[in-house]
C-alpha cells in the first residue's frame, strides 16, 4: 500500500476523533442503544412479575428489550409451569398478612406456600395486573425478545417444545453480545 501523506493522515485522524467525540462515543467501546437486557433467574411468582412488567413497559417505550430466562427463571416461560408459579413462604421476613408480620417459623407449616401464593394473586387481581401468561403475551406483542438458556434447559431436562412459542434457545455469549450494547441491564 502506498504511503499516505502524513499531513493528510493527521487531518483524517483528527476529523475521526472529532466525529467520535461529537457522537458521544468512547473509542473502543460499543455504542449504547435504547436497549434493555434483563436476566430472569428466579421461578417464583413474585420474581416473575418484575422482568415481565419492565419488559413490556420497555417495549411500549420504544426500547429494544430482551429477557434471558435461565435456571428456575425458565419456569416463567414454561407452557404449563408458568400457570403454577408460587410465592415462597419461607425466607421472606417482609411477608405480612394485614398489619401482622408472619413469623418465619410459621412459613414452614404445610399449606403456607399456597396461602402466600393466594395472597399475592389476590393483590394482583385487585390492581387488575394481568396474569403471568398474559404479561408474557404482551411482552411478545411489544417485540420483546424471549431468550432461553440452552444450558439450563439441558441440565433441567426442559425441551424447546415445553416452552412458549417464539423462544430463542441461546447461550451466555448471545445474551452478553446483546447486553454489551444495552443502556440498561438488570439481573432479577
Amino acid at each position: 500500500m502506498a504511503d499516505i501523506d502524513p499531513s493528510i493522515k493527521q487531518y483524517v485522524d483528527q476529523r475521526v476523533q472529532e466525529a467520535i467525540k461529537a457522537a458521544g462515543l468512547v473509542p473502543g467501546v460499543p455504542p449504547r442503544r435504547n436497549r434493555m437486557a434483563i436476566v430472569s433467574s428466579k421461578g417464583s411468582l413474585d420474581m416473575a412479575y418484575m422482568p415481565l412488567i419492565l419488559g413490556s413497559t420497555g417495549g411500549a417505550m420504544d426500547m429494544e428489550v430482551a429477557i434471558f430466562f435461565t435456571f428456575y427463571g425458565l419456569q416463567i416461560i414454561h407452557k404449563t409451569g408458568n400457570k403454577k408459579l408460587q410465592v415462597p413462604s419461607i425466607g421472606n421476613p417482609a411477608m405480612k398478612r394485614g398489619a401482622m408480620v408472619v413469623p418465619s417459623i410459621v412459613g414452614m407449616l404445610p399449606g403456607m406456600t399456597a396461602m402466600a401464593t393466594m395472597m399475592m394473586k389476590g393483590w394482583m387481581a385487585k390492581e387488575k395486573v394481568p396474569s403471568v401468561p398474559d404479561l408474557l403475551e404482551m411482552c411478545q406483542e411489544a417485540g420483546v425478545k424471549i431468550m432461553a438458556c440452552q444450558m439450563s434447559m439441558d441440565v433441567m431436562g426442559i425441551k424447546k417444545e415445553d416452552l412458549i412459542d417464539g423462544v430463542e434457545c441461546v447461550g451466555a455469549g448471545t445474551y452478553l453480545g446483546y447486553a454489551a450494547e444495552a443502556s440498561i441491564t438488570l439481573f432479577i
Partner: protein
Amino acid sequence: MSNLKETVKPDQTLDVRGMGCPMPLLKAKKAVETISGGQVLEVVGTDPGSKSDFASWAEKTGNEYLGYTEEPGLFKHYLRKKK
C-alpha cells in the same frame, strides 16, 4: 393544569380505571397507535403512578404529555401523538 379541560379537546378517550402498573401505559401506547399524528388521547384512570409514567414515556417516544386534571380519586391524562 386546571385550564387543560378548556384548552384540550381529546380525539379519543381510554378508560383504564382500576388498573395498576403497567396496564395504563401499555393500553395508552396501543391507543395512541390508533390515532393520527397531532391528535390527543385522553386517558381516564385511578393509578397515581401514571403521572410520572406518562411523562417519562412521552419523553422517550417523542410524543407529548400535556398533563392531567385531578378529581377525587380520578385522573385524566392528555397525550398528544407526535406528527
